[in-house]
């Protein structure tokens, strides 16, 4: 059965979703003169000069290293903290358990912007502005509520027999968590790594406030400054954007299945 209309609608939507990325890549390969003359066509003779300039003459690697440190630090910290808490909430009885879970879940919806004033004042006071550890703490805190929510929901679906058997073997709770529960939870853990890494890597608000030092700038804060400086050199700017977008784009294309699953689970955030 041929139905041209739904196909056409999907084609148009996909084209609109794809055009900015294509424009970015195509323009990055044009020379400045060619872009001035032709803003929409394909490059006649692709030039890699802008990429060379971006990679060697700008601090883009430094920015990426900073972003990577923040992503790694906050993802590891939030996962460790969330796994412990989610295990207790899902599998143990204690007073205040339900209140803690409700409160933690509610924090998912608190806009990060309302936290910047007190955190900025506190960090100025105790010297945590422009430090990795300060920013990692904030990011880990911001992503923890969703991590706890997802892990608790998952841990509750694990069969009780598993736990009974481990208890008979004399395992402690920490051993059960590490040897029994976590190996069975790779799918939700991967989802959390993807969703949380995307959040931290893509964030601009916290990055411009808490990492003001040039040496500590993240990719997103870097390019926000960058585009103002090279305002008229559009192919060069696009090469910068392409380099900044590359890590997530490549991860998305390579780990598509996990990304799609992660995004679909993470969408409740």
């Amino acid at each position, binding site marked *: 059965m041929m*139905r041209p209309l739904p*196909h056409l609608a*999907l084609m148009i*939507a*996909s084209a*609109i*979703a*794809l055009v*900015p*990325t294509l*424009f*970015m890549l195509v323009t990055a390969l044009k020379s400045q003169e060619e872009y001035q003359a032709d*803003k*929409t066509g394909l490059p006649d003779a692709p030039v890699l000069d802008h990429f060379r300039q971006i990679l060697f003459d700008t601090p883009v690697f430094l920015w990426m290293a900073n972003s990577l440190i923040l992503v790694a630090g906050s993802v590891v910290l939030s996962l460790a*903290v969330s796994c*412990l*808490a989610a295990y*207790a909430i899902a599998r*143990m009885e*204690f007073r205040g*358990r339900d209140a803690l879970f409700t*409160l933690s879940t509610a*924090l998912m*919806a*608190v*806009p990060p*912007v*309302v*936290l*910047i*004033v007190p955190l*900025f*004042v*506190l960090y100025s006071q105790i010297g945590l502005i422009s430090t990795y550890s300060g920013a990692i*703490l904030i990011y*880990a*805190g911001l992503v*923890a509520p969703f991590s*706890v929510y997802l892990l608790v929901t998952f841990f509750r679906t694990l069969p009780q027999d598993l736990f009974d058997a481990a*208890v008979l073997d004399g395992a402690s709770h920490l051993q059960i968590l590490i040897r029994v529960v976590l190996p069975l939870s790779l799918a939700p853990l991967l989802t959390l790594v993807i969703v949380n890494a*995307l959040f931290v890597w*893509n*964030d*601009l*608000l916290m990055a411009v406030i808490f990492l003001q030092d040039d040496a500590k700038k993240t990719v*997103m804060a870097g*390019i926000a400054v960058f585009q103002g400086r090279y305002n008229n050199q559009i192919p060069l*700017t*696009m090469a910068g*954007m392409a380099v*900044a*977008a590359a890590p*997530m*784009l490549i991860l*998305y*294309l390579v780990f598509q299945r996990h*990304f*799609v699953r992660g995004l*679909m*689970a993470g969408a409740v955030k």
Partner: protein
Amino acid sequence: MRRNSPLVPYLFVLPLAGLLTFVFGLSLVRLVGFSFKQVRGIDGPWIGLRNYELVLGQPLFWEAVRHNIQLFLVIPVMVVIALALALLLYERLPGWRIHRTILFLPYVLAIPIIAVVMKQMFQFSGPVNTVLSALSLDFLVLDWIGSADVALWTVMGLILWRETALGVILFLSRLMALDETLIEAARLDGAGWRHRAWYILIPQMRGVIEFFAVISAITMLSAVFAYVYVIGGGRGGPGTATMVIELYIFNALIRTSLPGVAAAVSVMLFLVSLILIRALFALRRREEE
């Protein structure tokens, strides 16, 4: 320690409680305190409601509020487009997986990156206007970024472009979780696509549609900083045409060093978002029942 000690669960949740108290708990308490003080540096004297009076008497604050309200117009458009695209993907037409990959893409790209790219595309002498005039659509050739009358609408277009992808992701994952027998039965009864979508699929998606509308409202109110920071050149420009509440807080805190004023605006923003958070919880509870 013995495995049945009543302290064990508390040790497990202690790091989380500590982290959340540090980032959220203490911050929210201190935020309310600051909003009643004339903060210079790290603290200052109590001045009652004067921060609030100052903010509420300032035309720029109300302009920012109006702009955030204008952003809400994007929500219904987003819902309709995302719903249509999710239903189309759900049909599993040949090549639907490729379309899904492409349609999720805007949500994977970072806002600052696409904002920089779009800002160049929509320059007055940029490629968008070149294409529009080539198509003889000269009445649409606007100064998308540089004109104070148009800039916020351009920001809205950009938000629509990216956040619709989240809607597609959410709606599609709900559709995939639906019981297929009813849909199959309808298909065998000869119900057309439109009929199935309207009478069988959409009614079952009411919850997720409302959920998306509420989280989009939270976004429009309090998560558009990165869009306007790039499009408005860091200052909500041209002039104050793209000033929003978040940028107002940012300016008061970082540029003019008035944490008390920034805190007062944050408290008001938090109170409004509490209403939305309550709505979100009510929806989730109803979904679970």
